[in-house]
């Protein structure tokens, strides 16, 4: 697949402190690339460098095969950005805001009108188009923020943590919208520190920490980097110590923990772990309420790679 963005050896310093350390990656046409990392890992700095909003010490950035520069207006035409901070004019209505930002790219009034309607539909704000931003909830404001960034139908869209502090309904709406945009052919660079979002949305994920790429790949290949394969949690009424010791002797069990009435068993690998455990509980007349089985998350991958939690 064709590379839409190529980043080579990107290095950025803030007052002699390394913010980006020799970053190299590509973004393929039509994919959603996730930049995942905790706060301060360099996600936003990477995006700002890609957009020429920040200068950098060394490296090379090519977008659509051309060098990205502050005055590369032909390239900027193909780019849409949704920043983490809401950037709308409080004095304008929802419709007028989208019209203004779309108007920075598209001069034809009729075309713009059509694009605005489509953007409103995409983010589910049609019925709010005459509302002023101060009349919208936080989630609706975020949707407006997205509409302002993508109304001009760009080929490449940068979404910098667009779901921060958003209610579940708006989050779902935003995620659905992003999927729609991809279907329409857009290439998306999505930064987040919500691993669930990255898992649901992204074709490929780059895990960043302290300005370095820790790992890169699709969610399945990344999860292989985690030491664990499965985690089973059981809400148990009572369990004897000897039974706990017996569980520890299971072939693939890595760790067994009991906290109040919650039993957590971590497995290294293997299949049929749940079946084996159920059988054991029944044989030993151990009564339980609920059982959960979890595959490793990207947080587990991050934990394994850095020794700290993604949200730390």
């Amino acid at each position, binding site marked *: 697949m064709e590379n839409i963005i190529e980043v080579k050896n990107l290095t950025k310093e803030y007052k002699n402190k390394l913010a980006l350390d020799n970053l190299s990656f590509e973004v393929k046409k039509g994919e959603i690339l996730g930049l995942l990392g905790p706060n301060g890992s360099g996600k936003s700095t990477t995006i700002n460098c890609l*957009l*020429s*909003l920040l200068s950098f010490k060394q490296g090379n950035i090519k977008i659509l095969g051309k060098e990205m520069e*502050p*005055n590369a*207006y*032909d390239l*900027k*035409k193909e*780019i849409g*950005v949704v*920043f983490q*901070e*809401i*950037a*709308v*004019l*409080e*004095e*304008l209505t929802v419709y*007028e805001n989208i*019209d*203004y*930002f779309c*108007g*920075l*790219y598209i*001069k034809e009034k009729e075309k713009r009108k059509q694009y605005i309607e489509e953007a409103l539909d995409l983010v589910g704000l049609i019925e709010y188009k005459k509302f002023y931003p101060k009349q919208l909830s936080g989630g609706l404001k975020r949707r407006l923020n997205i509409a*302002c*960034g993508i109304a001009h139908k760009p080929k490449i869209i940068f979404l910098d943590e667009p779901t921060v502090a958003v209610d579940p309904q708006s989050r779902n709406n935003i995620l659905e919208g992003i999927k729609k945009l991809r279907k329409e052919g857009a290439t998306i660079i999505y930064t987040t520190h919500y691993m669930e979002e990255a898992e649901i949305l992204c074709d490929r994920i780059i895990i960043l920490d302290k300005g370095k790429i820790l790992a890169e790949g699709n969610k399945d290949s990344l999860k292989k980097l985690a030491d664990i394969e499965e985690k089973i949690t059981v809400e148990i009424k009572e369990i004897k110590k000897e039974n706990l010791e017996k569980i520890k002797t299971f072939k693939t069990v890595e760790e067994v923990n009991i906290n109040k009435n919650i039993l957590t068993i971590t497995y290294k690998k293997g299949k049929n772990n749940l079946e084996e455990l159920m059988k054991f509980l029944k044989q030993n007349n151990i009564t339980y309420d609920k059982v959960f089985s979890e595959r490793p998350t990207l947080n587990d991958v991050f934990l394994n790679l850095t020794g700290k939690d993604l949200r730390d």
Partner: protein
Amino acid sequence: MTVFKTYFKIVKKYKGMILLYTILLILFSGINLSTNDNNTNFTKEKPNILIINKDENIGITKNLIHYLKKNTNTKEIENKEQKIKDALFYRDINYIIYIKENYRKDILDGKNPKIDIKTTKDYNATLASQILTRYIKVQNIYVKNMQNEQEIIKNINKSLEKQAKIEITSKINTTQIEKMNLYFNFASYSLMAIIIFIICFILTSFKNKNIHKRITISSMNYKKHNRIIRKASLLYVFIVWILFSLLGLILLKDTLLSIRGIIYMVNALVFAFCSLTIAIMISSLTNNKEAVSGIVNVVSLGQAFLCGAFVPTQWLPKNVLTLAHILPTYWYIQTNELLKKLEIINLKEIKPILLNMLILILFSILFIIINNQISKRKQKIE
């Protein structure tokens, strides 16, 4: 065009504020325009004098007394020192003339006898002094050149009979000019507030860090975007000026269509553009709208109070006026005051007015330089 249209869409959102300051101006002007006296009439005034004659009432002395009685209101008061003092104190009389013994003889002998006077030193006393001086000067000329007393008296009276014919040719309606002056002085507050408030709010919106970022990454050149904003601001200022001029035309009618009225409007236009540069400078100081609102209130109201927009400058303390020299409104109002007093309008007379306008332009240049310096510093920090 989108940016330009958006600018005026935002202006429209602040129409309430524009309306508020316009109503304030109408109310203030309405109060002043409701008085309609016209004081172009001319009346001849006569001072109240007292003549104490110790000479014989004949010949030259008699003629002097006759002349004085004809041109003043001659009062009869008992020749007692205390009564005379009281009459002077209570302004019953403004001028006392003491004609000494042998006045007539001394004149005819070619001596220059002294005439003692007492005066209240006011306008009427000055007028009496002028009347007496005029007579003495004419008398001295004829006494030097003639011998015959009757000939001298005849010539004195002939010369003094020649009256200057006074005709008021000036068509200046001082009441209307005063009203125009009050309108434009108060307009300085409304004009400055409307311009600074709205331009500051619009510019702080566009300069908001996140909006600025969004514009920078768009396919529109940021410098071009700024150029459009500047053009829209200029047009806005021009529209506000036209609005105020039209309002002036409705309230002051023909008076505004005179050369004087046009100079008043030009002065307001220069002041409006100076206000624009103040707005640009303030908006570069902060992006916080509440802070902007506070600064704008201090700037517009403060200048109006210190420079005489609400209170005539002659009533303001000297030290306040000295301080006001550093404020643009002071120079705008000074121009209005000069215009009010101007009798003849020609290039020579309007030179001080043009100089004041030049000072306003220099203020504007200064504000632009300060704005550029602040912007450069901010860019460096970012």
